[in-house]
């Protein structure tokens, strides 16, 4: 995290093996068919504020700069609005490419935004990604599920934790 793509690219060399590994993780998505029409980037929610350019990411993966992308902070700017998946005429689907790169960042143990790890810990502990909150009304009265007469949350059975860890730890 906190490493810009420009810095990472300054000494980079294409790595075809990394590209192959990436493609196998991506499954049957048709990455190589991207012809750089820029439909993804022109509709990208994260373009204006965070300078995410999905077409560049697709091109860099195709050229073999997978490790550089997985280490860069740019892959964490995607809002996951899915417009690029919808609009890509070549089914190259930048969103899915970015998700594979995020998974690879985790595998490489690059520092990723902390909130994702917090969500993971909470799921492991309680099954849910978030903890129950008290909320206040516009008149500052405080409520929780119980005082709102909402039913208790049915947390998962005990075996959940072990099974979830099993798939998390699998190579």
């Amino acid at each position: 995290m906190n490493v810009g793509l420009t810095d990472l690219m300054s000494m980079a060399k294409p790595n075809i093996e990394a590209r192959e590994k990436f493609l196998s993780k991506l499954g049957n998505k048709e990455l190589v068919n991207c012809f750089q029409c820029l439909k993804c980037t022109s509709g990208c929610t994260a373009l204006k504020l965070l300078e995410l350019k999905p077409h560049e990411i697709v091109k860099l993966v195709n050229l073999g700069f997978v490790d550089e992308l997985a280490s860069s902070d740019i892959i964490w700017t995607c809002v996951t609005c899915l417009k690029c998946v919808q609009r890509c005429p070549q089914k190259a689907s930048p969103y899915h490419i970015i998700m594979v790169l995020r998974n690879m960042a985790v595998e490489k143990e690059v520092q990723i935004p902390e909130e994702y790890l917090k969500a993971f810990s909470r799921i492991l502990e309680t099954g849910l990604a978030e903890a129950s909150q008290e909320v206040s009304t516009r008149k500052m009265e405080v409520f929780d599920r119980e005082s709102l007469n909402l039913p208790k949350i049915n947390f998962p059975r005990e075996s959940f934790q072990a099974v979830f860890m099993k798939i998390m730890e699998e190579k």
Partner: protein
Amino acid sequence: MKVPVFWGCRILTSQYAYEMSVREVFQKLNIELVDLSETNCCGDPIKSVKDSAANYLAIRVLALANATGLDGLLVPCNRCHFAISEAKNVLNKNKNLDEKIKGLLREEGLEYNSYIKIWHVIDFLHDFIGLESIKKATQKPLKDLRLATHVGCQIIRYSDLGRVDNAENPRKLDELVEIIGAKTVDYAEKLDCCGAPLMYSHPSSALSLAGTKIKALQSLGVDGLVISCPDCGLMFDFRQKDAMATVGAKVNLPVIYYTQLLGLALNVEVEKLGLHLNQSPVEQLLMKISA
């Protein structure tokens, strides 16, 4: 009729008004919601960490729904709806992953059967209950209201999965608003994202996305914004003040869940719809309705 419901995390832990209003409205429409015997995260945040584990979480939800013996599942959260729909699609195509996840579920005594229809509130009301039935059930039509709708991103994209409405021109939420008497407006920013998923990595940019949209809506002079996703509720309602601070504007835009609005038309009491929990100034809207 009985329908199992999976709420996901955000509704169960903070967006209580959505849960309350869905429960009330469905009861009024004679649909009995069956809460799952247990719940877990749909996998959405884990998609960024480990895809296969995210799919396991999503399919576990479907297996819990299978265990009710009923053949549908209502998922009122857009992100959960996407995570679960995509996982179902991935398993249909990837036999290895399908076997692996079914094996893990069996360790917990759960069975997954992919013949299950995944509903969102919008398509359940629009396609299953139907506009005519909603019109008939309406006791207090909402006249003289001009409202904007925001359907959110993840229930309309991407179409290959089979989504709730058209990806580029969603109309179902507008039709649901119009059938209970209010007018809807078309606006250029209609498909703009609320920014919620960026709260994990770039919170100020996320709030700025929400703020920019609210600012645009205010200039249209609408009476309020109608939403149907707990993430959009978090951004446009719960964090409206913070969102406006990022774009340097003071705005007071009532933001209301569709099920809250429908509840008012069905004559459900305001408190039961959780309207005291909205952080945006919904009184403005309520006064206009009762006037």
